[in-house]
């Protein structure tokens, strides 16, 4: 059923099996993107964000808590529960009032029937009165129960929130690092003939030990290849060649990177 003033526009992809995938967008999206592009743009989010989060958890400490300060404030959980119960209690009040009014009206009808000497109608009205009386008792019981529950919540409590300032600084750090690593990898991949993932560069190059020598004309870094498999050694060799092609410099001197087995 179309809803009144619903600003959403829908694009539905019907796969061979399973439920259709329904995308919706606002008018700005409709103006900017072709309907056929919507699924691709939406799917790109997974690579951009979900995988990025995984990478940042792995090597960016995204999941680490920084800072122990807390800020104590009103208990929102309690407030929400209280609001919900107060709403229910107000509804129960209304229901009791309504039932009481109905009961009163029915009592008047019964009295009228009695005074008029109705036979069958009096019986019907008395039966209805008994039903209303029972419903009123039920509503009153419900009201009492809700009032008791609202009472049980006690006085307004307090609950803490984390002070996010340190956490935000360190997450900005993580995001800066991730941006820098991506940019570094993009430059490195530009100098390579094969595709290498960031994870592989981190494990093969970043975490390895080696040696460094600075001379008057260049700076030489050796990367220790001890313990590497032949395949990894080949990839590391390519990475090292890529690094040499990146024209890295230290204090204005060119950096040369070499492999070296330093196990002996």
């Amino acid at each position: 059923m179309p809803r009144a003033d619903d600003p959403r526009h829908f694009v539905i992809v019907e796969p061979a099996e399973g439920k259709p995938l329904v995308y919706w967008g606002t008018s700005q999206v409709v103006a900017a993107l072709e309907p056929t592009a919507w699924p691709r743009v939406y799917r790109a989010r997974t690579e951009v964000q979900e995988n990025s989060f995984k990478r940042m958890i792995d090597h960016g400490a995204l999941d680490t808590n920084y800072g122990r300060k807390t800020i104590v404030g009103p208990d929102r959980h309690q407030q929400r529960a209280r609001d919900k119960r107060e709403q229910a209690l107000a509804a129960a009040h209304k229901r009791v009032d309504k039932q009481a009014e109905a009961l009163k009206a029915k009592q008047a009808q019964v009295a009228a029937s009695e005074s008029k000497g109705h036979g069958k109608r009096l019986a019907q009205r008395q039966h209805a009165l008994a039903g209303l009386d029972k419903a009123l008792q039920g509503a009153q019981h419900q009201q009492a129960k809700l009032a008791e529950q609202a009472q049980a919540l006690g006085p307004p409590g307090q609950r803490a929130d984390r002070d996010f300032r340190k956490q935000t600084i360190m997450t900005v750090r993580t995001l800066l690092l991730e941006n820098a690593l991506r940019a570094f990898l993009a430059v490195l991949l530009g100098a390579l003939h094969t595709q290498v993932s960031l994870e592989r560069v981190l494990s093969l190059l970043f975490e390895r030990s080696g040696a460094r020598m600075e001379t008057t004309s260049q700076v030489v870094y050796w990367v220790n290849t001890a313990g590497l498999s032949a395949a990894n050694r080949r990839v590391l060799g390519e990475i090292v060649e890529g690094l040499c092609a990146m024209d890295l410099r230290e204090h204005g001197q060119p950096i040369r990177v070499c492999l070296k087995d330093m196990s002996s």
Partner: protein
Amino acid sequence: MQLALDQRNLDESASPGFCAGRKLSEVDQALLWTLLHEDPECPSRALLDKVARRQIPMAVSLRHLNRWRAQRQLNRRKGRPRRAPCHRPVASGSAVVRVTPRLSFVGVHLFAQWLDQHDQFGPVVAQLQQAIEAYKQAHPGDDFALLHHREQTLRRRLQALFLAPVLGITRLPAFDTHEHPLSTRLGQGYHSSTLSQFLGQLERVGAAEALMPALLPAHAGQIISVDGHMIAYWSRVPMHKGKITMLGRIMAGSQAVIAHDDTGQALCVAYYPPDMPLSQVIVAYCHKVGTATGSVLFVIDRAVNAVALARAFDAQGLGLLCMLDDNEHHGLESFEATQVDTREDGTRV
């Protein structure tokens, strides 16, 4: 390799990788190290001859030299030395200025050099200095270390925090317990207490807001993706709770809302308590990101209260692309649809 005879005039403290011993100075050790890297299979006796030919007196016994080689992992196998067919000297024709024979995290050093070369920390330090100046003006009575740091100190400490995760250090106390190459990278190491204080002082000057613009590229992509990431937090204090997705538990924590552009560049982060539904904060967040980047199209994960959210985005002049929750429709019969295209895989749009 020709080693300059005036090498002994080099600043002795310029070789942090070697500690001057009673018999072998740092420069002696650098010379031996260089000769051994030219020819790792060189027997110690021949090595001493080479040193002697350079007219550098080195009063050291063969045994001592062998021990030194073993300590530096420059020793060779027993037996007659094998001659490598073609051993290219690594730094021919140049004198060694500084040698670090054992360097951990070589790749991090190279990455940091690349960062320096492209002045990646320049804008960050500049933003931080601005924040510090603003804080000084707003709080003239306050006085703590960060307000007096030189640009170089700020840069070094920021680099220490920045590189920590790629050095395998996730929590600051690990700076005291894990081996890290900060001394070879930054010229000095840091204890966790220094960096904790630094972080505390950054918090005090409100560095989070100041550093956020450093995330923004010159030209952000057109389409911004936004998603939340819940992090669990353990505390004995009663705290507000939410569903921590990774653990599948309702517990205390924090909710990071992070925006990336379509090239994968991270643009912004904001933290919210875990009990706050994303739909309550997303409009204000996207408005903030849109103002900072100039992009108005946002893609977010499946949303609840879709109609209300769509109305709110429309009212702000922002575009939102989202997926409808599977529970909100019963397949194609819920819609009056018109076929637009058939894709390569046969699915109909």
